[in-house]
């Protein structure tokens, strides 16, 4: 029986066709594998291109800023060009005072707004949410101009005017971060508390806030980091001050201003002060950003 079914493979059209299909498939696979490898390589190349300048910025700031750091740099006020021993103590104080005021006002306000948004789903709430979203991206120079119109025109240049502008930059960031954190509280926990007859305020205080704490801290620290790095709103509101000034109702100096003004000076020692200030500002911002992650991670681990 079997022998009658034997056929001549060389002349069978089906076998020939199958061979062609195999060949085409192999060619297609080879072609696609090559183009895939090229495209994936291009992606890797993009990643490399992206990382180089970003690493270069940080590396340059560290390399050029560290030599500027000295005891005088942190403890002395700005000196005029040519007189050695100048520092940025006045700018450090200004940035700290302005940052503290802005944080002290925006954190309670922003978190309350965030809680409001987390507990509301109406049309009003989504309008507020949208407003906060858009406000996180508006050009910060226009917020500086608002600070000028609202505060400087009436009360003159002052640290408070700067804190006002910085606060407006920080507020929407805190609101949205707060809302996200408050919303991450499991629904069941909320409902359990409600079922036990707890009032909204005590649910907020005893359930929502403690559970959301890691997210809240992360959001606040990131907002502070963002606020401290802002330059444009300060340029139009605090005026700068090369003398020591603790009083926020008077013109103050700040680290971003020192960087901005000194970087375009023709004198190497002033440029060096700018690098030192840039390193300090970068260090503060990165410590806040990294710190926010560490705090959140630690708090979350404790919960378990």
């Amino acid at each position, binding site marked *: 029986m079997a022998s009658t079914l034997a056929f001549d493979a060389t002349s069978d059209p089906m076998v020939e066709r199958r061979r062609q299909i195999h060949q085409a498939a192999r060619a297609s696979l080879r072609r*696609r594998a090559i183009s895939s490898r090229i*495209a994936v390589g291009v992606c890797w190349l993009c990643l490399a291109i992206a990382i180089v*300048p970003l690493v270069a910025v940080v590396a340059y700031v560290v390399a050029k800023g560290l030599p500027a750091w000295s005891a005088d740099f942190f403890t002395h006020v700005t000196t005029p060009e040519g007189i050695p021993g100048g520092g940025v103590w006045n700018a450090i104080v200004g940035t700290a005072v302005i940052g503290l005021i802005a944080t002290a006002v925006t954190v309670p306000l922003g978190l309350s707004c965030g809680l409001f948004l987390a507990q509301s789903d109406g049309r009003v709430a989504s309008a507020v949410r949208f407003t906060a979203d858009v406000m996180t991206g508006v050009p910060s*120079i226009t917020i500086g101009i608002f600070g000028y119109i609202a505060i400087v025109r009436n009360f003159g240049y002052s640290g408070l005017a700067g804190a006002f502008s910085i606060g407006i930059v920080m507020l929407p960031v805190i609101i949205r971060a707060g809302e996200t954190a408050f919303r991450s509280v499991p629904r069941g926990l909320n409902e359990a508390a409600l079922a036990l007859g707890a009032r909204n305020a005590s649910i907020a205080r005893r359930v929502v806030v403690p559970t959301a704490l890691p997210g809240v801290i992360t959001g606040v620290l990131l907002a502070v980091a963002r606020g401290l790095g802002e330059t444009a709103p300060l340029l139009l509101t605090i005026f700068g001050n090369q003398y020591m000034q603790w009083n926020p109702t008077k013109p103050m100096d700040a680290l971003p201003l020192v960087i901005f003004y000194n970087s375009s000076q023709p004198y190497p020692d002033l440029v060096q002060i700018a690098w030192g200030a840039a390193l300090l500002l970068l260090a503060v911002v990165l410590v806040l950003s990294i710190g926010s992650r560490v705090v959140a991670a630690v708090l979350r681990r404790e919960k378990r």
Partner: protein
Amino acid sequence: MTAVEIPAGGSGARTGRRVALPNRAYRSLLVVAAAIFVALVVWYLVSLVVQARPAFTTLGVSWIFQKVWDPTHNRFGLLPFILGTVETTAIALVLAVPIGLGSALALAHLVPDRLKAPLSTAVELLAAVPSVVYGLWGLIVVAPVFRSTVEPFLSSAFGWTGLFNGPADGVGLLLAGIILFVMVLPTMVAISRDVLAVVPREQVEGAMALGATRWQVLHKVVIPGARTGILGGFTLAMGRALGETVAVALIIGNSPYIAHSVMSPAATLATLLVNNFGEATGTELAALFGAALVLLVIGVAVNAVARLLVPSSALSGAVPVAVG
């Protein structure tokens, strides 16, 4: 999970020592907070509009598109600055979109899992670097390289296109655009990575089962699924580039004339404000407020579009708040 003590008892129960705020009082407290925020935003918008009005009434609407800015002769055309803003943003995005997308794809799907978290964190941290630091770096480190090497090369190699003529000063549109590219890159990468990473596993595996190569999976499955989010990230990056002030002010050369080549010094709306605001009075000040309003309108429009495109959860790339 936290142990939550909710004392038994009716709605009038005391919680611990303190009396719980009645629902209505608590609720109105939160509403007041939201109202203060909204009032601040309204105050901000209204005061800019009010201050900008004189510019529109004395100069007409056409001043926005006039070509000459010359305060001593009472000419306040905004066109050079609008063009400068558009041109620097365009240079930044032409570079940031492909490179940002490529890096986001690599970060989301190609990098080994061990490296994913550290690299992603690094990108997000870089988004927090203050812009004035980029300006300092651009002015002191990159501008001299542009002046001595990059720009002479570009004008000798591509001078025939007409785009790269003019003096090689280092500072100018090209430098500003490239530094902006570096600045918006983390935004672009962080948001694109987030939306690229959430493509359903079944779709990826389905494509692989059909014999798709790695690139075909990325190209035909991953990217189409993330298109809206990528567009949103692009728009957010655009918003950041349009409104960037101090970094650009340091490196663009600040010239109130329309640039003839990408190497010419120029100015943007934001740098116009920061450079002229201190000394301006009268009509010039009104014109500056007008310029601020134009910038604000552009900024709000771009960001509003971005927020409509990007799901809020993906935005947490900029403000990372883990859920759960």
